[in-house]
């Protein structure tokens, strides 16, 4: 900080010396980014010269007689997060500011990006502030704030997103445009991404934008950082969070600066959390540790070309509830019957013992952007990833330090993309992509691997045409892909031998979407897409005991690609500040849906009988709806209601699909308060969230019945404190305020233990 102060001081001096008179001025309007309506009486403050003014009732402002060329302008408005902008007044005399006035609403429904990137995709996103307030949680947990998104969990430490009922191999997670490459197939494998490294998180619910690599069958999660601003001073933020349940500490620091050679940003996060707690007992061995770092550099190479480099590393160690690691069917049944899980300790502990996971992930991305002409852009991308996953379990002898699963996955992604504005209203995007995945079992486990070593080459071609026509916006997409699989399997027979298998899949996706903006604040969005997904290696060739699920899984080498047709419509009505309404009904038909079918016979081993599952295919239908209604009768009161519902059916066998999110709805009542001393933007929010029982399931489809419905009460208080010219945002959040005992259908730990009890989270954010 002192360095920053010194810089600022020097800046003052130099500014005062040079500017004998004060020739600079600035003017413009301040508007709401979502509605475009002017923000009356917004505050504008020039930090260097300490000049400030309030905008008029139309959001217009003008400041004259500024003695300095380069200034920082702070723009504030009631119920907005203050924003700081750097402006060179020699180049800019007029500047219009956009503020995230409806912080919450905007976060909920946002079709973001410039007109060039405009899309008919139904897209919900969360911004920086939401990420910071919930930064102690996992990526998937943060995303579950969005309607239509649920989480599949394995305790409090491991969670992965479910979008419209689909997860794992069927959705892709794009980290700055690169499809996350790891062991995404495991229900107990969470995406290895630090949410703090993102400036916004969004979810695309339709047939995913066909310009991206990864599975196009389900939704897409986009984790994106914004380009570093051209701002010559060091700025950043420090976030610290403490959560009482698990006694977790999260510290994050982010700094950025436009340096002499390039613009850069650095982000680091460390987390440490101990055993979580249900209302009545500790969940022994559910702690976790995390250390993440990311770096971004943007550089303009010349008039035509600019480049971006991204590096991110994610490292974690997660404990898994000791009482959930059981042996055979008999043990499983004994564990289900227990009130309190086996091995539950009476003391809190930060220690992480076996069973546990240790995962590290590295991502390096290089991007080269060339503006060939005003209508043509060329882009080259390389993305390299290394994922190392090691899982540990209690073993005989001194083998517990040896992992039971150890996988190294390298992946390399190459892309060339050409964006051509054919006319004022037509844009054609074409591209070619190559993804190479190299998955290797590290020979250190002393156990025959669950999934074999393999090499996969995936080559893709795509084209997307955007057409704008008055109130209409159309998008047509096509994607053709070829995937070559080179699998090296160790046979199950004795003596073990090596078997090589080569497989080749060719598949394609097409999509069409239209958006219609009606004059009466109504936006209609429709999207239909056909997509295919070839079977993944785990679905084809896995064999063995899957620790996390205590069942024996067997792949099926004869699986055919899944074929899906999904249609969805979104109606979005947004009238001024008063009401926002969004509803998204959808239907998805999947031919050859790949799923784990429990086999009638248990598999007998020397450790007893095990539930035995085989990958099979059937036709499936998913129907669902997401809805959001927000009412804001005054600018101080807001009521936000959300609903997520999906119904899944296996049409071939006429049975429900398992692991479908049960109906969930929530209501949040938010009240804004007057400034109290230095505390501004004070809001208090009470949320009631209800999750129904998953009744769409046969008794024979699960070991135990789905848990009962539950209702949770959450309360949060947020404020921003202004001290001199620094801002500190503080939040206190209580989740499960009433300490309700419940179990969640989508949390695998429900078989063994209750879900977590009351939790207080203190979040603080200092921006400079």
């Amino acid at each position: 900080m002192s360095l920053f102060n010194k810089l600022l001081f020097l800046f003052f001096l130099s500014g005062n010396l040079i500017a004998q008179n004060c020739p600079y001025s600035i003017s413009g309007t301040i508007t709401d980014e979502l509605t475009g309506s002017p923000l009356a009486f917004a505050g504008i403050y020039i930090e260097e010269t300490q000049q400030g003014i309030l905008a008029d009732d139309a959001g217009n402002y003008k400041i004259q007689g500024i003695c300095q060329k380069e200034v920082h302008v702070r723009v504030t408005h009631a119920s907005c997060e203050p924003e700081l902008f750097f402006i060179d007044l020699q180049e800019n005399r007029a500047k219009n500011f956009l503020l995230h006035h409806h912080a919450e609403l905007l976060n909920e429904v946002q079709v973001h990006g410039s007109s060039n990137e405009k899309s008919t995709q139904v897209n919900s996103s969360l911004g920086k502030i939401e990420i910071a307030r919930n930064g102690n949680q996992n990526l998937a947990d943060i995303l579950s704030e969005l309607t239509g998104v649920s989480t599949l969990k394995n305790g409090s430490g491991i969670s992965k997103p479910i979008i419209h009922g689909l997860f794992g191999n069927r959705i892709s997670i794009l980290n700055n445009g690169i499809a996350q490459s790891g062991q995404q197939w495991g229900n107990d494998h969470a995406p290895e991404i630090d949410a703090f490294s993102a400036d916004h998180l969004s979810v695309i619910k339709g047939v995913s934008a066909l310009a991206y690599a990864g599975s196009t069958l389900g939704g897409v999660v986009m984790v994106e950082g914004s380009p570093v601003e051209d701002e010559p001073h060091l700025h950043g933020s420090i976030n610290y969070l403490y959560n009482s349940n698990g006694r977790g500490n999260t510290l994050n620091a982010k700094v950025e600066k436009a340096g002499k050679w390039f613009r850069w940003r650095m982000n680091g996060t460390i987390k440490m959390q101990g055993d979580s707690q249900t209302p009545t007992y500790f969940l022994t061995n559910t702690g976790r540790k995390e250390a993440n770092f990311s770096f971004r550099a943007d550089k303009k190479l010349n008039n035509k070309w600019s480049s971006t480099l991204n590096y991110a590393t994610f490292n974690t160690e997660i404990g898994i509830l000791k009482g959930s690691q059981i042996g055979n069917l008999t043990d499983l049944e004994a564990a289900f019957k227990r009130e309190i899980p086996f091995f539950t300790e009476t003391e809190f502990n930060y220690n992480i013992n076996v069973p546990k996971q240790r995962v590290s992930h590295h991502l390096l991305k290089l991007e080269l952007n060339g503006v060939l002409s005003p209508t043509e852009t060329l882009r080259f991308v390389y993305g390299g990833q290394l994922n190392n996953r090691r899982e540990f379990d209690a073993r005989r002898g001194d083998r517990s330090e040896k992992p039971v699963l150890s996988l190294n996955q390298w992946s390399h992604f190459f892309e060339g993309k050409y964006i051509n504005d054919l006319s004022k209203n037509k844009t054609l995007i074409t591209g070619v992509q190559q993804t190479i995945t190299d998955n290797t079992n590290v020979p250190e486990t002393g156990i025959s691997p669950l999934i074999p070593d393999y090499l996969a080459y995936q080559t893709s071609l795509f084209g997307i045409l955007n057409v704008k026509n008055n109130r209409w916006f159309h998008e047509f997409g096509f994607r053709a892909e070829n995937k070559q699989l080179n699998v090296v399997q160790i046979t199950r027979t004795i003596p073990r031998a090596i078997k090589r298998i080569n497989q080749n899949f060719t598949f394609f996706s097409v999509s069409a979407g239209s958006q219609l903006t009606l004059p009466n604040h109504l936006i209609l969005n429709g999207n239909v897409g056909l997509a295919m997904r070839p079977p993944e290696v785990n679905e084809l060739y896995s064999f063995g005991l899957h620790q996390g699920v205590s069942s024996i899984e067997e792949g099926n080498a004869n699986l055919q690609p899944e074929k899906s047709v999904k249609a969805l419509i979104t109606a979005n009505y947004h009238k001024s500040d008063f009401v926002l309404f969004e509803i998204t009904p959808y239907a998805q038909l999947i031919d050859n849906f790949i799923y784990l079918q429990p086999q009638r016979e248990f598999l007998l081993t020397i450790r007893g009988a095990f539930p035995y599952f085989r990958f099979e295919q059937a036709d499936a239908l998913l129907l669902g709806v997401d809805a959001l209604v927000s009412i804001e009768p005054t600018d101080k009161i807001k009521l936000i209601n959300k609903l997520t519902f999906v119904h899944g059916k296996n049409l071939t066998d006429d049975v429900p699909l398992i692991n479908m999110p049960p109906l969930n709805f929530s209501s949040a009542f938010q009240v804004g308060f007057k400034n109290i001393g230095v505390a501004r933007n004070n809001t208090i929010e009470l949320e009631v969230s209800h999750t129904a029982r998953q009744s769409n399931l046969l008794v024979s489809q699960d070991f135990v019945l789905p848990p009962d419905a539950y209702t949770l009460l959450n309360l949060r208080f947020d404020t921003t404190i202004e001290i001199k010219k620094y801002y500190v945002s503080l939040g206190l959040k209580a989740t499960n305020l009433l300490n309700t005992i419940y179990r969640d259908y989508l949390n695998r730990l429900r078989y063994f233990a209750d879900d977590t009890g009351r939790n207080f989270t203190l979040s603080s954010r200092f921006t400079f």
Partner: protein
Amino acid sequence: MKNYLFAFALLFLFSCEKDNPVIENEEELITTLTYKLTASDGTIVEGKFQDLDGDGGNAPTISNIVLKPNTMYSGSITLLNESVSPAEDITTEVEEEGSDHQFFFEATLANITVSYDDMDADNKAVGLKTKVVTEAASNGKLSITLKHKPNKSAMGVADGNIANAGGETDINVVFDVIIQ
């Protein structure tokens, strides 16, 4: 380093063959459990559970145990990994880690009593050695379970009651037993 070079080579050569994987030495694998029962007159009866290819694949073979009525047997358990040759003896490993292991014997048939005949370092039962006493003719099932890291102090565990033992199951085999 090998990985880096390999990755670099991939940039230019888009169709490599995957290296042969290392076949793990599955030293923890137990393929065979033998329950040898020696009567006081020296006759030997053996129950054997054998699954040479491990989980899945070919089903295990399980022999029956035929006992004489009103007889006392000394029982001993042998554990082998026969997937490698020569076969590996796992029994000693369990013996050395006696305090982390315990066998449990549960019979569904009448007229048979199995009691522990060995102790770990803490004077608690392990169950590699047992005493088996038969009475009148009967038949049914005998289940043998080896628990790793059970709670040996939990109620009833010392007497062979598995209910409160916890721990992970290393072995769980069931024999048909006939007393005739």
